[in-house]
């Protein structure tokens, strides 16, 4: 009896220690994705909706590292060209080229009429928003899995703050290099709402950046969006870029 109990304990301990801690994974992910530099990049968003055809948006994204400010300048389609979105501290403005006016909008408002929102472009830390999900025994929910032929860890996290889109997420992370390959987002009612596939990564200053992501709307079948990031530059950006005047000058 004592021997049997000892075996169960050892096996339990082994399985417990064979997985990395989820909070540590989140910390690593924050470190991996957090770009400690100014950033300029071209972002292409292709959105396909059931029975509505395809919509393609192109924009230039500028981010200042020191004060968490960002600017989005729309490059395409033609009717959106020159419009922009400027985030400074708590303020978020939308600029309309035609009327040359700035309007205060909420962070959760759409960018260029797409499903993308202002807060999607913010630099948010996973560790501040989520924590490891635990099962009824108090163990973190993490297991082995495979995506295609790639060995991955499948782990679950839950929100620790309300300020998130989805209170529960499941990630599939490569075992060999720690890159996220897939992310499933669930609503409070437990419905799978969205799946994200991280299709392509690039390395900048030894940090892995996802440059092609496919978002599949699991609620309304047939809707999907592809985000492609290119022309990433991490050179210092002038403070003048993050001003209303810069946006206004662009449309002159």
């Amino acid at each position, binding site marked *: 009896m004592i021997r049997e109990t000892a075996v169960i304990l050892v096996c339990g301990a082994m399985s417990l220690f064979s997985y990395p801690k989820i909070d540590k994974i989140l910390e690593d992910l924050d470190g991996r994705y957090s770009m400690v530099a100014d950033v300029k990049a071209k972002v292409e968003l292709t959105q396909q909706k059931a029975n509505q055809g395809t919509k393609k948006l192109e924009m230039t994204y500028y981010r200042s590292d020191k004060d968490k400010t960002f600017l989005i300048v729309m490059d395409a389609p033609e009717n959106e060209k020159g419009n922009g979105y400027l985030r400074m501290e708590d303020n978020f403005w939308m600029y309309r080229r035609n009327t040359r006016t700035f309007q205060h909008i909420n962070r959760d408002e759409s960018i260029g009429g797409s499903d993308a929102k202002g807060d999607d472009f913010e630099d948010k830390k996973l560790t501040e928003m989520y924590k490891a999900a635990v099962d009824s025994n108090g163990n973190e929910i993490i297991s082995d899995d495979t995506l295609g032929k790639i060995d991955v860890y499948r782990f679950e996290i839950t929100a620790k703050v309300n300020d998130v*889109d989805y209170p529960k997420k499941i990630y599939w992370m490569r075992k060999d290099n720690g890159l996220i390959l897939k992310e499933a987002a669930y609503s409070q009612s437990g419905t799978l709402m969205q799946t994200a596939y991280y299709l392509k990564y690039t390395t900048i200053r030894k940090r892995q950046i996802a440059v092609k992501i496919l978002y599949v709307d699991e*609620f309304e079948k047939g809707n999907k969006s592809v985000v492609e990031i290119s022309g990433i530059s991490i050179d210092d950006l002038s403070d003048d870029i993050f001003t209303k005047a810069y946006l206004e000058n662009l449309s002159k």
Partner: protein
Amino acid sequence: MNYLIKISLRNLQRQKRRNVLLGVAIAFGTMVLIMASAFSHGISDVLFNQIVVYVAGHVSVNFSENGNQFTQVFHDGPRALDIIKKAVPEMRSVQESMGIMARAIGNAKSDNIIMIGVDLKAGDEQDAKDAEKNFKMITGSFSDIGDTAIENAVLLSEQKAKYLNVKKGDILRVRYKLLNGQDQASRLTVAGIFKPANLFMSVPVMVEVKALKKLLGYSPDDIATLYLSLKKPKKDAVDVADKIQSLMKPSLAGIYADITGKDSIRARVTILGCKSDTASKRLLKSKISLIDSSSEITKESVFISDSLASVLKVKPGDQIPLVYIAKYDNDKGQGYLKISALFKSDSVIPSNVILVNEIDFYKVFYSKWPADFTKIPEAFVPDSQSSIYGVLSKEWNLLPRVKTTSEMTKQQREVGSKRIRGTSVSVQSMYESASAVLNLEKALYMITFIAVMILFFIILIGVVNTLRMTIRERTREIGTIRAIGMQKSDVKMTFVFETFFLSLFSALAGTVAAFAAMNVISLFKIDAGDNPIGMLLTNGHLHFAPTAVSIIGFIILIIAIAVATAYFPARKASNLSSAEALRHYE
């Protein structure tokens, strides 16, 4: 006097055909005037008691949290309702107004919808009947919306049901935002399909308000924007709004809590919120002695006294849990605070006080409304004369009353752009919030009134002409009665009485005819289709609302105009000398 009346009445019977025709003209004018007035009042009735009540309320109490117009919630709901019931003891109803955009998926079809909360218990029996009238059910029953045995029962219009390809008993899957901004998916059951009373009713999907609040994540003590329906809206709306405004003044916000430091050391403290605008931060900096003078006051600041930090063995950067007694249900609230800096306590800010930035403060405060800290003897309650009183957060932010719709829009924009923390509360009467609808009512009334008065003046020209003819015809008769001794004033009064009785009888006949015509017209059903004019109909019928005051007023007006019109020809007739009148020959 009696003989004058008798002569007048006899004279009325002399030229029967002419008087009947004149009487018909006056009666017709009266009928049109009363009908137009009743129709105008009917529109007014529909606008005030059906459209304004649902669109903006006669008086509304609006809430928005953290400057977000879509987060319409007030967390101390029982208190707000109590204040309103005290302020307005005689109101028809108070109901929560909730509308939320959602994406709905039916049977292989999807569409955007608006989920609207319907409060089945608000209002009196008449309101319930009106509600049932608005929802002419094709399948299912209106009351099924409140059936808790059905999973999230909803009613929708036949147009929406057709588009989403659903029928009674089918499930609608919906995606929407919860109160906290999270994406949520739920299932709704089609409990009934109705024929919309007007164009606007074809869009929303109706959900029982309690069920909708639950779907959106409201807690039991949370309420949404309140719409008040008054018994005398035109007269009382502004006064009621002013009264509620004066009673909704917020008190200082504070939490008396147990906090736990290192080694499970506990202390009881008063937690106060601090405003984050530049002026408040500057004032606080001048009043607080920070241990580390390089510490900045930011929107993330949480200050704890050095002596309390020493007792709890905590330092800046540490996170401390807190627990407190909630206001309702003997419940407890809890939260965390992350210390950012230490201050030296003094007589203004004692050691058992924690000053918290308003973002984190309201997060805890609103998560579970705390018991009133001012009634706890051990709690620190700053005096209103205290030098830091101005920087401390109130329970909510009461916005000043506005006078016009444009001021209201400007105010809403400012609340959003300044991202005012906490719940902003604004009280509005329909004159500010629904001025467009009220202006429409005024315009319709004026157009109707002017058109009818023009018609009536045309009729009066006929009256004057007829009187002049009558006097001319009776000139020799006037000479005779003047010769046998009738006074000038009596002659004048004979004509005035004659006109008075003619217009009185005609006006009464016109009133009867107006009621008959209104009843007949009301029987016809008008299919307005998608025409917005349909919103002015009641179940497809024209709605007339005649009032006794206006009818009596119109009859008096008609008689007065007719008598005034008759007065001058009558005076001219009475001024004729008898000899001259007797010589008159045509």
